């Protein structure tokens, strides 16, 4: 028990003294996951709109497939991306395996189905009357889609944040395609995995606390904004 307490104290020390290596790893982690979230949102939200606002055969099946991908193991995506970007793979020529770029790509692949599916649900949650109202007031298809998306903004934001949560917390993909290279592709999760196996519990714990804090801050800010605006509405 005292070991654990010691570890905790060391962890806090590492954080508050601003250990340069720890800070660099934290910044890199945030950078990779935020980029991945950004690009995934850029892809997922328009695709979700296409799925939601069009009627086509197999729409239900497509949504079911997306939902299946919510639970896809990160190592499986890691393997897939590894194969594609390895020397002999179809995109091996790019030579970006074991770089932060390929980690971003992997995370985009990992979280896009989740974000797309949740955004489709978010859009479905908007009353159909809103769509009719927009159209009846002269909105074109794009304008109508934008209006419905704005009505679903909080649910869509939640979809994006859940995607971010999955990206920042995964480790299998980051190790497989990033390689956990010190000072280059090491992230909080891969560092934790390594340090724990090497017996550096204090360091690992410090990294864990930082990871949790980062996730918490990124998730809390938007929901705080949402609560504030809904309180303003009630007034």
């Amino acid at each position: 028990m005292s070991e654990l307490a010691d570890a905790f104290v060391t962890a806090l020390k590492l954080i508050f003294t601003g250990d340069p290596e720890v800070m660099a790893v934290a910044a890199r982690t945030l950078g990779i996951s935020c980029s991945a979230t950004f690009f995934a949102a850029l892809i997922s939200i328009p695709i979700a709109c296409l799925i939601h606002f069009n009627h086509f055969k197999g729409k239900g099946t497509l949504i079911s497939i997306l939902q299946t991908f919510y639970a896809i193991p990160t190592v499986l995506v890691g393997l897939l991306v590894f194969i594609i970007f390895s020397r002999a793979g179809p995109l091996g020529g790019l030579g970006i395996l074991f770089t932060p770029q390929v980690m971003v790509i992997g995370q985009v692949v990992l979280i896009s189905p989740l974000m797309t599916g949740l955004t489709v649900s978010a859009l479905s949650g908007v009353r159909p009357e809103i769509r009719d109202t927009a159209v009846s007031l002269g909105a074109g298809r794009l304008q109508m889609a934008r209006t419905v998306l704005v009505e679903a903004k909080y649910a869509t934001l939640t979809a994006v944040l859940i995607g971010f949560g999955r990206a920042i917390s995964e480790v299998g993909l980051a190790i497989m395609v990033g390689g956990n290279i010190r000072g280059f592709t090491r992230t909080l999760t891969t560092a934790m995995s390594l340090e724990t196996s090497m017996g550096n519990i204090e360091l690992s714990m410090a990294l864990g606390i930082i990871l949790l804090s980062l996730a918490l801050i990124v998730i809390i800010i938007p929901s705080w904004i949402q609560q504030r605006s809904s309180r303003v509405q009630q007034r």
Partner: protein
Amino acid sequence: MLLEVNELCQRFGNSDILKDINLEVERGETFVIVGPTGSGKTTLLRLIGLLDKPASGTIRFGGREVPDSARARLELRRRIAIVFQRPAVFNATVYDNVAYGLRVRKEKRASLRNKVARALETVGLSGYEKRDAQTLSGGETQRVALARAMVFEPELLLLDEPTANLDPVYISNVERLISQIIRDLDTTVIMSTHDMFQGQRLADRIGVIISGEMLQTSDPREIFSRPQSRSLAEFVGSENILRGVIASNEDGIVTIDTDGIPLEAISNLDPGSEVYACIRPEEVILAPAKDLTSARNTFPGEVSHIVLFGPLARVEIDCGFPLVALITKKSAEEMGLQTGSCIYAYFKATGVHIIER
């Protein structure tokens, strides 16, 4: 002619919602579609508003058939506004809600502000600009919806049951507002309602739709006095509808045999024609004794039921056939009417409206 609807049909699954609707509406006219709930009014308005496509039939708008391409439909749709029965407001301020139609039309900011202010003033919501639209009451929401629809000055304004979800106290308010908009905007209005009297108050012309069929279109008075079918007669409140056959016709005065009871009426139908005879309850006069009057139809009977509502009394009489009379409460009291009273019921031959079966 602003709008011509030809043989319009709509089908959901296997059920026909609208059957062969024909309709013409002139520029500047206020046309009211009256029908009971579920008769297809909303479906028809959605087709006219180009929100849905019909199963078959055509709509011509401004003399031009509504095209199929999305772009051309959008262009036409921007000349039409619809206010739904339960208006939904966007999760935004009242100002942004009203400005919506202008923004999607890329209106310049300065004129946008003026137009929104004017629309809000018309509906009596000046000063509400910054209010969150979702916190408004039902009546206020309805007024935002009206402002939002009139702000871009549509050539055709479609109103779907604009007062159906309002408390009775707000209904006359919104009705007054609608008449004002019709007057100020000088636009063409097609409105639906299940309230025949509301139709009469606001319409230049009325069309009655029952079970997806437009049964009659004519001026509001004629629908009441001369309904063209039995279901229409029932809908407009002809409570006395008797089945019969014309027994004779002498110079336009016919005798109708209704289960052995003769009725006199005005008609040019030949003997043998199968008909319904409709007598509006307010056409029936009651008297305690048999008098000589000009009324061609007199029946002795017994009062079987009296219901009072407001200043009126609805009296059901058994004259060998059931007959309903609508008289004032005062008359009923002065005659001492009660269940079991024996009285005479009178109605004129001109008070009988005949519908061919």
